[in-house]
């Protein structure tokens, strides 16, 4: 878990090396996304997935390109917050070539954990939904790319997942460059710590 920095206060004739290190820690938090510093993650799918019609479904990508705060601990595509604060999430949900127009939505689902003082454990909130009628064809994929700040301050053990919904059963395909139609758009879920909050 990343440690939120402490902003020091300096006084006349101050000789505190601790305070200088605290100041350095603030700067590190703000500019460095190394492990243990400011949380960011980027997960994507590496396997196919069938989505049942009219059902919000976790897209389930758990292959991590980066995870500086260990949020991928569940390895299910559902990230578990480790460091308190506001977060912004971004994603790309892919609809593999479909011969029929479908309604296709991608969104984020936040769930309160046991440490959250503002919501009962298990409370959910959907946010950032984007999508509508696609016009994909038998040879072309479609995609939606939501981006949104989570409406609630996140506490450790809160979770966030990216979900997809469609009016007809369809598939998500893996990240692949085998062919134009084969998983052309990477199904991905990204998030980053934005700001302190309570």
């Amino acid at each position, binding site marked *: 878990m990343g440690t939120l*920095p402490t*902003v*020091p*206060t*300096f*006084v*006349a004739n*101050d000789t505190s090396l601790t*305070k200088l290190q605290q*100041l350095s820690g*603030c*700067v590190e*938090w*703000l500019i460095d996304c190394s492990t243990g510093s400011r949380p960011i993650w980027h997960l994507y799918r590496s396997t196919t997935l069938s989505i049942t019609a009219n059902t919000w479904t976790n897209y389930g990508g758990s292959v991590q390109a980066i995870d500086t705060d260990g949020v991928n601990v569940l390895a299910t595509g559902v990230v578990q917050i480790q460091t308190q604060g*506001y977060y*912004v999430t971004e994603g790309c949900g892919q609809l593999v070539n479909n011969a029929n*127009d*479908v*309604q296709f*939505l991608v*969104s984020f689902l936040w769930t309160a954990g046991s440490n959250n003082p503002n919501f009962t454990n298990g409370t959910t909130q*959907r*946010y*950032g*939904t*984007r*999508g*509508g*009628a*696609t*016009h994909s064809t038998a040879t072309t994929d479609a995609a939606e790319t*939501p*981006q*949104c*700040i989570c*409406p*609630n*301050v996140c506490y450790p053990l809160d979770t966030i997942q990216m979900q997809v919904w469609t*009016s007809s059963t369809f598939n998500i395909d893996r990240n692949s460059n085998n062919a134009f139609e084969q998983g052309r758009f990477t199904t991905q879920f990204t998030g980053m710590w*934005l*700001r*302190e*909050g309570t």
Partner: protein
Amino acid sequence: MAMTIPTLPFLPAGYIVTPADMNNLAACCTFALNKPIAMVFDSAGSQSIATNPANTTISFGSKYFDSDGMWSAGAPKQLTVQTPGWYKVRWGLSLGGTVLATCGFVTSTSGANNPGGAGNVSANYWAGYSGALGSAPGCAGGGGLWPFYLWAGDFIQVSASATGSGESTVSTDNPSWMSLEYISIQQT
């Protein structure tokens, strides 16, 4: 409730650093760790979307959070900048109806502190589109860095137009929303 823009100290060779200099550096960190953000939403729904070329400015009657006082119940169709700087805007419209398509976009309007004077409306930026399919829902959205430095008093709005009558916002499950995130000061 504007935040105070922090002062970046100048520390030339031979200069003896003062507590004020160090505290200014600390204030820069405090500013970055607690920068202005706001996110508002349409809790009521049922806002009728005008037919193109007319458009409807969306009202956001509730807030999720607003650290800098950018939203007020008396002016629910806008977020008004309190702390000048560069901002990122994001938005989403939840739509219900049988209209073919709805397009949303963002504009800014200058306030009294803007050097160009008040009342100047920008072009339409960061547009997004959603197509309906029968009565199934659609969610248009967009976002990005606002292309102009925003002065205190400038405000941001989301508007939309549809290809026909009968389109409106919905508030269930995932209501329409708009957010502003502070990105950067500009010293010069």
